[in-house]
């Protein structure tokens, strides 16, 4: 295995501030952005996934969808130019690109449910080996429940990528055999980008596509407690 790791795992960027065994948020956003195809219609979830917008290659035309009713979204305006009528799903101010379009909520979610959206990138509390996603509730009894568009996004896009740290702040793996938090969607996640590695969900197992920094497959096995193998390209 170690040969294969060496062959398939690009080492971390030369960023002096990065820890040697992982990518920082910005580097990870850059890494995700590099995998988005030219011409794709993409929804970026609230939180870390929104960083991906800043790293889309200028040579490619990617159309960003925001579920509150817009295609062709561009990053935040300068102060003084904030338009309260022009916000994204995280209720942050955005701007419009030439060729943008506005539509009402039923059309916006038809774009997901109807299979028109190519990709959505979401955050996660947990992802299971079968691609189940938990990202809307920790199930804490005193929490006020709020789901927004998470469940619609999870089952709507052709591909669902998750972008997250591999471990929680308390060191537990977010990749799990089966989710213990309430589910957002069943069998919907196709790929997971973490700070340590990229995983594909294949046939009920995670397959490691790429290792970051000095991270090894054995370390990932230890951190996740899962039977991990490298992706064999099949």
């Amino acid at each position, binding site marked *: 295995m170690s040969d294969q790791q060496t062959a398939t795992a690009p080492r971390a960027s030369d960023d002096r501030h990065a820890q040697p065994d992982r990518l920082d948020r910005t580097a990870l956003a850059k890494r995700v952005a590099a995998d988005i195809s030219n011409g794709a219609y993409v929804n970026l979830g609230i939180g870390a996934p929104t960083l991906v917008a800043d790293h889309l290659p200028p040579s490619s035309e990617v159309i960003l969808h925001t579920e509150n009713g817009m295609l062709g979204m561009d990053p935040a305006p300068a102060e003084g130019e904030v338009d*309260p009528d*022009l916000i994204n799903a995280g209720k942050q101010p955005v701007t419009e690109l030439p060729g943008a379009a506005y539509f*009402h*909520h*039923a059309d916006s979610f038809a774009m997901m449910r109807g299979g028109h959206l190519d990709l959505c990138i979401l955050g996660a509390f947990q992802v299971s080996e079968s691609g189940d996603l938990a990202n809307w509730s920790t199930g804490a009894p005193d929490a006020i429940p*709020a789901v927004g568009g998470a469940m*619609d996004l999870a089952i709507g896009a052709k591909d669902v990528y998750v972008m997250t740290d591999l471990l929680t702040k308390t060191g537990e793996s977010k990749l799990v055999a089966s989710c213990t938090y*309430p589910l957002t*969607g069943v069998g919907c996640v196709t790929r997971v980008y973490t700070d340590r590695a990229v995983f594909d969900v294949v046939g009920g197992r995670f397959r490691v596509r790429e290792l970051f920094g000095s991270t090894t497959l054995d370390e990932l096995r230890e951190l996740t407690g899962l039977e991990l193998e490298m992706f064999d390209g099949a």
Partner: protein
Amino acid sequence: MIDKTVPDVASAVAGIADGATVMVGGFGRAGQPVELIDALIDVGARELTIVSNNAGGGDVGLARLIAEGRVRKVVCSFPRQSDSWHFDTAYREARLELELVPQGNLAERIRAAGAGIGAFYSPTAVGTPLAEGREQRVIDGRTYLLEYPIHADVALISGLAADRLGNVVYRRTARNFGPIMATAARTTVVQVDEIVEVGALDPEAVVTPGIFVNRVVAVGERPWLRDSEFVGGVDLAGAPLAGAGASAGGAS
């Protein structure tokens, strides 16, 4: 002659009774019909069921309606936000009931009501806690949940401009739930910056045709526009930035 215009917001919300189901447009503050909600608070109706994406933020609009104790139930997708303290308090004190609906199902249930659809099957939320106790059906190998339409007595909506026939245009992402809510209520009330002459709206650009609208009221131009041009100078809630007061014009 058809004339759906009313002279003020009080006339626009007149007749909303205790126990009414009221759809309130908006996604966060964008498109929230704050002036109509303020008028509804003045009407005094209680025990309301509110259908809206959020449950209000800060101390204005929907948040104030909840703070005033007028709401019995909220049907929404995302009640919790950083400034939703009035909802949070009412919910924790069990002063109101929450029906949590995924955003796309909320939109489609409203659309279905307006389109005369008796029910529909949606793949959203299958296998999640929100599917518990719900009727499921497998169609072509995929599992769906049965969803019923949401009708309302009244819809309160915010648009940019309308004519006396009730044709409405919106502005940017403030459109959000307006067009579908307009179709799903027995009485649809629209506040707009400006009422224009019949014929002034490009028929190709009308988003909500007047057939769906019952009352239209002008509330003055939003502060970040002047003579229909964007001038900015406000924060996300529409409040003037410090030192930018000069650029805020004609709000009611």
